[in-house]
């Protein structure tokens, strides 16, 4: 809609920088709606998860129905509708990883973090999730922590990796696993 009175949307829940970034992304596509997935990452990055306000903000900036934005976000695994820990651990449970013992890795993570799948540690450092195929079968069994891939996991290796994330920040690239 073109308002004869200037823009009305307030982008509730998003900073002006985030709104500007979403607009920049929209301009990259012939059909601005194509930027929706990237816009959702912008909102999630800023708020930490897709709160109803964050979704409303994306919908306002992109002039889309909130229901559509929510529907699209719910389709994908990498968007969170609830607050998550500083690091989201996603353990692949698909075929290659299953054959290579991801069950053992997942069990180790549960025991060590003292949480179940879908939960967040009380210190809000880690959220544990499972995922279908993360497109890294050559690293099976593997997991993602944030955007970092960690493969050929063993319980000992998992322990070592977790200590690197213990301060709530992502380690430097050279410190990441294989």
């Amino acid at each position, binding site marked *: 809609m073109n308002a*004869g009175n200037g823009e*009305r949307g307030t982008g509730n829940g998003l900073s002006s920088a985030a709104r500007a970034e979403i607009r920049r992304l929209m301009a990259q596509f012939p059909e601005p709606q194509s930027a929706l997935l990237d816009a959702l990452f912008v909102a999630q990055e800023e708020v930490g998860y897709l709160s109803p306000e964050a979704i409303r903000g994306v919908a306002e900036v992109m002039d889309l*129905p909130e*229901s559509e934005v*929510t529907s699209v976000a719910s*389709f994908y695994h990498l968007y969170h509708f609830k607050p998550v820990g500083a690091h989201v651990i996603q353990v692949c449970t698909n075929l290659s990883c299953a054959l290579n013992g991801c069950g053992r890795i997942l069990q180790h993570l549960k025991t060590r973090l003292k949480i179940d799948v879908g939960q967040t540690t009380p210190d809000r450092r880690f959220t544990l999730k499972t995922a279908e195929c993360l497109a890294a079968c050559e690293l099976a069994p593997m997991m993602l922590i944030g955007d970092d891939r960690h493969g050929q996991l063993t319980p000992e290796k998992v322990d070592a990796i977790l200590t690197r994330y213990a301060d709530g920040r992502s380690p430097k690239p050279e410190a990441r696993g294989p």
Partner: protein
Amino acid sequence: MSEQPTVTLTIDGKALSAHKGTTVYQAATRAGIEIPIFCYHDRMPPLGACRMCLVKVEKQPKLQTSCTLEAADGMVVYTDTPEVKAGQEAILEFLLINHPLDCPICDKGGECPLQDQTYKFGPGRSRFVEAKRDFAKPVSLGPALVLDRERCILCWRCVRFGEIIAGDDALKGFERGFSSEINTPFTLPVQSKFIGNTIAICPVGALTAKSYRFISRPWDNRPVQSTCTLCGVGCAVEFDVRGERITRTRAREHPAVNDIWLCDLGFFGHAFVDHTDRLRRPLMRREGGFVETTWDEALSQIASRLGRTSGPRVAMLGGARLTNEDAYVATRFFRAVVGTPHLDHRVDARPQSPDLAVSWGMGTAIADLALADCVVLIGCDITETYPVLWLRMKQATERGATIIAVTPKALEIQRFVRWQFLHRSGQGGAVMLALADAVRGTAPREAPQGIDRTALAAAAKALGSASRPVVMIGRTALDAPDGWQMLAASGEMCRKTGTELNVMRGKGNAFGATAAGLLPDVAPGGRALADAASELRQAWGSLTTEAGMTAPEILDAAVAGGLDVLFVIGADLANDVPDRERWRAARARLPFLVVQDAFLTETAQMADVVLPALVAAEKDGTVTSIEGRVQRVRAAVSGPGDARGDWAILAALAARLGKTIAYSGWEEIFNEMRGLIPGLGIDERLPVRHPPLGKPSEPERPASAAGGFPLILIPGEALFDRGVLTSRSPTIADLAGEPWAMLHPDDAGTIDAADGEPVVITSARGSVAVRARISPVVLPGHVFLPRGYDAAPVNTLIDVNEPVTFVQVRALAPAAPS
């Protein structure tokens, strides 16, 4: 029209020809060949989600979904080979693996496509022994809708209805794969004015109506074909009746009006009919209170009071809730029996406003709205007033139509509005003048403050180049302080673009009341009184053919002590008139007030005699829609107690006065009306007559705020409200919620009001308590307050002598710290 290319194909050995672009499913259905299907709905494009419509096509290795397969020349299709049957059985077995088979307690049972097709095409067995999908059920999605995700077969009809037909995107699919479900975001109450349609098109019992849960089986319902009278669009409906109760309202197909859709007011607004508050016996005032009495006594008392006065000291107000025949007999009763010309159904019109100078209704045909290439909405909130018309406009936008809105509150359909000119109170006329100027090709005058000139020029260009423009003016514009200017500029815009002005004004059967002559200055059929006098005399005997007083003038006359008796028929003046204080003053000076209505309205509570009347769902006859279409209403139920039809009441009263008004039934009245009203016929359209419009005048200066009342009141419409009828239809009352007002965030911040918190709105006249809604859809400095909530009547705030109503808003409780 050029001839469409056709293709020839064979289905089940039958040679068929079809237009190019037709699907195999459509070609088969048209030839009477049944193919089972769930996801396809003929008002929406094919989807191919349910896989039920499988057919065998020669030279194609796999079975094909006939709903997505375009018919091609020489195609050979089979719908009943063993391979197809096996495919259908497999799909049904698959659809049923998660379906709970709770048919015995499912509201859809007996009219369920899944049930019917399973019976007809299903395997009759299942190999599935694993656990079915398990969801919480039933889930409430607001006051109207109940969701059962276990029954859902994910056909996407409801989702696509919201996207393609209504444009409200109310229901969506969430998650994916095995976890896919239809829902609202976060299972919040569904936001829609059309959700009843999704219940109607759901092919299973996943979406059901809260108001119809466990109420009836389809075979126990007796369908009665009628017309909805709640807003004025005149949608064709079917009342399902069980015993003496309307169990539900369904849409009836009418290609020229509602197609196959309704709004939720139509779907769920019938419940007031059998409400226990209905008046059952006549009431008479005695020693300060009401006592029940007989018709005999009530009519005698009215007749004796009428006998002690002269015709012109009697007046009648109301009529929008009557049938055409009721309104016509009322016109006859007051002009010929009582001998008064003071009758007017336009009880909600502002004095001296353009409301009284224009004919209400649409010259444009409803069906043609879908063909418009530019729609201008001037002070007309289409989804809040005539919602089903929006569905036609939505079709127009799909074809690329431009919508331009000039309103003081941004429209709900804003995603589809290309140019929204959100204007300050009193500036709409200036916006319209600038827009009309730009259409004329002259440089636009200075655009009003806050309005973008470039946008004005672009909108004018779109309008100027439109070949099928539609212009609509609504009550918000006509009642505005600069209403005359808005009307004149709208007229100018219409002249310039060669179209007619649609006056979107009047609820219920206001159009029938107009056609039947419930107006002070015209005869039935909109003819001049003098021209129709001799014919009327022939039909009715002696009568007064003078021009009488308009509704506001009737109130003035009552205030001045110029009236002895006032009849109020099917209107609640206390809430309907624009200025409640004037009504109070009028009532105080009125010696005798007769109210004829279905409920003890606020007006009826002040009456001397109250006569219990039937409502439209209890009457046979006709009503007239906003486009002038005359349609049948049929008695679905017989009505409570001793309540009577309105024309029968007036005929009985005439007999008491020694005059005869005798009709055998509505048909006889209708036939008499046909002789007096040119063009009157069932399903025909009566013309809307507009008097010539004046020239646009120069913009007036807006009034300035009075001390202590810094905000400007914008009265407006809400589809769901809590009036006499709607407050007694539980679904509608729940959809409406408590009375509310809309404030701009800046103003809300100033007074510390939080969204949803109680606030008091006060004018120099009075105050109302409402819940605040905070949104930038209104401009700073304005408060939008919907009419129709009897608990927060807008007319307590308004003094009609003032063009603008200034108010202050105060938070009742301090806002919670955030």
